[in-house]
C-alpha cells in the first residue's frame, strides 16, 4: 500500500503507524490532565528528535495533547484510536 509522506508538523494516521517510537508512555487509566503531564515530563527529559508515543484512555487528552504538541512546537505524527485508548505519536522538535 502506498503511503504519502507526512507533512512536517501535521498528523497523518496512515504514515504514523509506520513510525517506531523510541519511548512509550502508558498513561491509560489516568484522568485529564495526567496523560499530558506525563508526556511533558518524558519529552523534557529526552533529546531532540526522540519519538514518543503516548497511550491514553482519557477522551479529553486525545484533543488536548495534539493542541499542546502544536503550541510547544513539536511534531504531531499521528493520533490513532485503538478501541479503549488512543495512541498519540510526537517527535521532539526543539
Amino acid at each position, binding site marked *: 500500500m502506498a503511503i504519502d509522506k507526512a507533512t512536517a508538523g501535521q498528523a497523518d494516521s496512515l504514515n504514523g503507524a509506520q513510525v517506531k517510537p523510541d519511548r512509550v508512555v502508558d498513561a491509560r487509566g489516568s*484522568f485529564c490532565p495526567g496523560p*499530558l503531564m506525563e508526556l511533558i515530563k518524558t519529552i523534557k527529559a529526552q533529546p531532540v528528535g526522540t519519538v514518543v508515543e503516548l497511550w491514553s484512555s482519557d477522551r479529553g487528552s486525545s484533543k488536548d495533547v495534539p493542541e499542546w504538541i502544536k503550541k510547544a512546537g513539536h511534531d504531531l505524527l499521528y493520533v490513532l484510536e485503538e478501541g479503549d485508548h488512543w495512541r498519540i505519536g510526537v517527535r521532539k522538535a526543539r
Partner: protein
Amino acid sequence: MPDRPKLSIVVLSPQLSKLHAASLMASVAASAGMEVNVFATMEALGQFRRSVIERRDFVLDDVGRELVAKKVPLFYDLLRQGRELGDLHVYGCALAADVMGWKPEDFTDLVEDVIGVTAFFGKSEGAQILTI
C-alpha cells in the same frame, strides 16, 4: 525576548471541585510555559492547611465526591506537578490568615508565602486574572 504569557488565579471557594478546576488550569498553563501565580484567599485558604489535607476534610459537591472516590490526583497534587514542570507559585492571603489566626507553618509547603493584595498585583502585572 518577549515576556512570557502570565496567568494569575484567585481562588476563593473552598469547594474541592473548584479548587480542582483552578489547580488543573494552573498546572496545565505552567507546563505549557506560562508563568502562573495562584492566590488562595478567604474560604479557599483554609483548604491549604496541612491538617485539612491530612484529614481529607474537603468541601464536597457531586463532582468533588467522585474525584475523591475515583482517586483522581487532587488540587495539591496538580499544583505540585505544575510546579515541577513549570513556573508556578502559590500564595496565601495575609488578611484571611490573620483573621483566622493561621500561621504560615499551618499551610502545606505549596504555599510559598503569605502576602497581601498589593504584592499579588505586583506578581500579576501583565497577567490575565481568573477568579474561581
